[in-house]
């Protein structure tokens, strides 16, 4: 039981890292709080659901679609909302109000469009096209059943979600530390005023980070039907709260600290699910309060908060 909880916790932890990553990137670069983050995750989930339902698209292929689609949504949304926010006296507080409103609008529109019923995608269909392609190539069909790790069985969808999340985190790391725009992104995260004064186009860098943040939320949404069981338009709020718990634990403003926060959250979540399941829904709130009281700068502390 303990081994299962720990391993499942790590898989969920990787997923939760992906869920919080975009939110932390946006906060780190712009110091604004995107309370609609979970709603973009929800829309990403519906993107995968409708691609699967209408066209039979394997949700794995919904990942690039969601990333590009929501990245492109994020760019104009940035220019529409964020520069005005940043010009305000208290952008952080104003962003909470503005994005809370946006969250409500998105949820209401999604409810009108998709209804309130829970929707899901069969777990075995995640990666089905890849398995079939591999089977045609090699003549050896890969089973869609549970995968065994250290004697414990896990749904293949969890493994795929965990691996995909790990790849997403690695790509964000490469973006931040191995690309010119990523270098500029870290400069803006470190000192926005200084970045402006060195001639960096801070608005462009921020818009790209905002687009990536929303795209990452949508990619997290693609795996939501498999990791969270089902999707509804109301799931956005819960996802936002989980994201906050994860990034506050890791280190607010440090995207890579999100991974640590996600893993701690994932393992805690599965341990509570296994041994105290009725408390599981309280976990994000309890962890948030505990971290804010004991170590408000996050587990990775102040030294890495500026990325």
């Amino acid at each position, binding site marked *: 039981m303990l081994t299962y909880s720990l391993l499942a916790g790590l898989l969920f932890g990787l997923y939760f890292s992906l869920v919080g990553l975009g939110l932390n990137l946006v906060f780190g670069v712009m110091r604004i709080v995107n309370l609609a983050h979970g709603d973009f995750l929800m829309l990403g989930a519906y993107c995968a659901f409708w691609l699967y339902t209408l066209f039979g698209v394997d949700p794995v292929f919904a990942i690039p679609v969601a990333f590009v689609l929501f990245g492109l949504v994020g760019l104009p949304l940035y220019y529409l909302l964020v520069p005005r926010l940043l010009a305000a006296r208290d952008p952080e507080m104003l962003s909470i109000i503005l994005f809370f409103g946006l969250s409500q609008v998105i949820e209401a529109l999604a409810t009108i469009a998709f209804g309130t019923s829970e929707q899901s995608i069969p777990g075995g269909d995640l990666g089905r096209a890849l398995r079939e392609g591999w089977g045609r190539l090699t003549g050896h069909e890969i089973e869609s059943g549970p995968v065994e790790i250290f004697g414990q069985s896990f749904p293949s969808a969890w493994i795929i979600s965990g691996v995909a999340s790990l790849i997403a985190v690695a790509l964000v790391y490469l973006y931040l530390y191995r690309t010119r725009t990523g270098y500029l992104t870290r400069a803006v995260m470190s000192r926005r*005023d200084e970045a402006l*004064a*060195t*001639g960096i*186009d801070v608005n462009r860098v921020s818009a790209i980070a905002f687009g990536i943040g929303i795209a990452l939320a949508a990619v997290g949404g693609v795996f939501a039907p498999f990791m969270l069981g089902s999707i509804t338009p109301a799931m956005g709020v819960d996802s936002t709260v989980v994201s906050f718990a994860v990034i506050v634990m890791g280190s607010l403003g440090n995207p890579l600290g999100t991974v640590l926060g996600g893993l701690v959250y994932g393992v805690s979540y599965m341990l509570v699910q296994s041994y105290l399941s009725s408390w599981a829904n309280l976990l994000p709130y309890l962890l948030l309060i505990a971290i804010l009281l004991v170590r408000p700068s996050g587990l990775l502390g102040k030294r890495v908060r500026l990325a």
Partner: protein
Amino acid sequence: MSPDDILRIDGLTKIFFGFRALDGLSLHVSRGEILGLVGPNGSGKTTCINVVSGLYAPEDGSIRFDGAEVAGLAQHKLVHRGINRTFQVPKPFMQLSARENVEVAIAYGGARQGEVDAAALLGSLNLDAVANRPAAELNSAQQKMLDLARALATKPKLLLVDELAAGLNPAELDWVAAKLKEFARSGMSIIVVEHLMGFIEQVTDRVVVMNAGKEIFGGTLGEAVQDKQVVEVFLGGGHAH
């Protein structure tokens, strides 16, 4: 705009939540001139620097720089055109070394490749000994010099210096004053915002005295101290909103 002017501001207005921080300010700066911007707290000096450097967009008025209208342009574009500034409180990239801070400004600030040498620039500002230390470990005077180095690394034609002298000892003040004059002799125009009148007297060719967001006097500092309105403003009772 006279061909000798690198900057001409006309009717510049900046309003913060109903408060007119700049209220139709007009002034000009010639090429190679060091202009002192003085006035009591809240008179709009730093706001002027912030608007000219692109940190804030003005509500009204014109800023002509090097023959072109630049009011409202984004700060990074102004840096590329040749306007840069220092901050009252320096804000370097703390995790980066002094050298890396300057290298970022060289790379993205619009200077031509090879035009600025980071080591030479740091050396000219007495930062060579701390070039490889993180900016966070530098003392406040060194951080001020690093801030100046960052601005110089972008090869500005107009340098806006916001209270660079505050906190420096007399020897450092003399040295900074000599440096600013050296920059001006090379053709750079400089606006100095400063409360230390001795420093202003030492470095500036001319001063503009501001009050309530407007220019109330233009001339030498010696003439300014003879001006009745200037004296009233500095000694109290003349601050009109």
